[in-house]
């Protein structure tokens, strides 16, 4: 086992330069304005990063922080996963307390919208917030636990590199430049804590992983992996960014945690940069093992 790990570590060291070159090539090919990457491989204990302290618009990766805040409250006994929550499409801006509603057309989650006026449990909302990136589910959970609690969860677990100020589609806040921001290092720390059972409790981490493994958007990290790979992850997309942050489980080896953040011109649209980076990193870390 030690010998195998050493071989992989040597292999990573040897291919670090080519990995770096490959990433620069992907960045150029996809005309990315910015790229941030961080990974930690539990098998080899290798951690590697590129531009990992640069802050990006978080897009929906901020939902990982909301998930963490929810399970903080659950673990403390202050919230039950089966507690009912009124599904209501009305929120208030953090800027001027002005109410706003989410645009149903932009949120592809009939699972939550179908319950307008009724209730869903905290567990259901958390599930749809992650697996289908439900904005409505997210804002409802932000209201349930509060932004302060979410930031407190990040602070308590010493997760630097994530700034969560608000829920989603708060246009007034967006115009005022108040956005949620993440770094690759910040997301990596959060996911490592979950992967290692250190985010509040093993039970909380198991529940969070179960949700993350059911992710339905698979055009990011999973698209660069063998089909047998299981990925507990969360994507993030707006017109100028495409991110993915996840824990990659492969057979016969420990998982690796990978965060890929990309930013591009709005007119360009997102391509396959995240999947390409994911493929390169898989080949670097585990590709040889799989081939052999």
């Amino acid at each position, binding site marked *: 086992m030690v010998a195998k790990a050493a071989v992989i570590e040597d292999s990573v060291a040897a291919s670090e330069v080519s990995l770096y070159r490959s990433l620069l090539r992907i960045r150029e090919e996809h005309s990315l304005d910015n790229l941030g990457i961080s990974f930690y491989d539990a098998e080899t204990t290798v951690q590697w990063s590129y531009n990992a302290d640069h802050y990006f618009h978080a897009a929906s990766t901020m939902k990982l922080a909301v998930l963490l805040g929810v399970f903080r409250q659950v673990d403390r006994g202050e919230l039950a996963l089966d507690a009912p929550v009124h599904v209501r*499409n009305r929120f208030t801006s953090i800027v001027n307390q002005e109410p706003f509603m989410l645009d149903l057309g932009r949120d592809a989650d009939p699972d939550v919208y179908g319950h307008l006026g009724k209730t869903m449990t905290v567990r259901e909302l958390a599930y749809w917030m992650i697996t289908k990136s439900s904005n409505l589910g997210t804002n409802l959970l932000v209201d349930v636990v509060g932004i302060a609690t979410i930031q407190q969860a990040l602070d308590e677990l010493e997760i630097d590199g994530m700034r969560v100020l608000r829920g989603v589609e708060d246009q007034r806040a967006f115009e005022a430049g108040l956005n949620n921001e993440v770094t690759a290092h910040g997301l990596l720390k959060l996911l490592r804590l979950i992967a290692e059972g250190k985010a509040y409790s093993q039970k909380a981490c198991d529940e969070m992983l179960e949700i993350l493994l059911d992710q339905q958007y698979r055009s990011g990290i999973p698209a660069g992996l063998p089909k047998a790979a299981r990925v507990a992850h969360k994507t993030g997309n707006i017109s100028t960014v495409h991110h993915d942050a996840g824990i990659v489980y492969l057979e016969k080896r420990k998982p690796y945690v990978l965060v890929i953040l990309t930013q591009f011109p709005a007119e360009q649209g997102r391509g396959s940069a995240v999947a390409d980076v994911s493929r390169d990193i898989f080949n670097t870390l585990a590709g040889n093992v799989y081939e052999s």
Partner: protein
Amino acid sequence: MSHDETEHGLKVVDAFDLDDEVRTLLKPGELLRDAQGRRHRLPRYFYEIPSHEVALATRLTAHFGLNEFILTDFREASGLQQYPRYVPCAVRILAFYLEELRERAGSSVHIAVNGAYRSPSHKLSENASPHMWGTAADVYRIGSTILKTKEAIEKYNELAEDVSDEIHVLPYGHVTGRDADDHVHIDLGYITLVPREISEDRMEQPQESRPRFAFEERRRKDRRAAVAADSES
């Protein structure tokens, strides 16, 4: 039907007789200020709903079930989310007016979660509001119309006001508590109801000699047994 049961088969309880925990949450008879500073006394007579099945099965009018008036989420005090649950007796007056509204609208009238009875311990209960009296309803949908536009809300506000002069609605607008932008708010004011099954002279009797309902006796017996067990151990 026993003397404390209504025609709905529900027990009427005097909240002063309830266990300390529930009574503390319901705050019967307490004075609360509304947003304008006016003081109102909270109701003390409640229907006791023993189970979810009973809530579902109990019709207050032809088209409104009791369960529609007690739909709350995690914001309601946890001690009031478990059965038996309690709802002020005036809720049946609200149901009567909603039935009238339904008739005039020609469509089903849907009350939102947290949109009917909210206890004074509910997280949305900042100032006194008729919701705490069981005499207000936030209607989020009529038929297939989700009430989120100015046109829809004003249309049904007008219809509701036509039902009776007793009905108060909130205008379309965005200030919580003062107006509404995703529902039609209907209220009848701070009505308290003393059911005919209740004899108010009971309150003149000393607390200990007041007749009790069976469930109260059971609880008292349980408490006495627990105290006795503690003193023996």
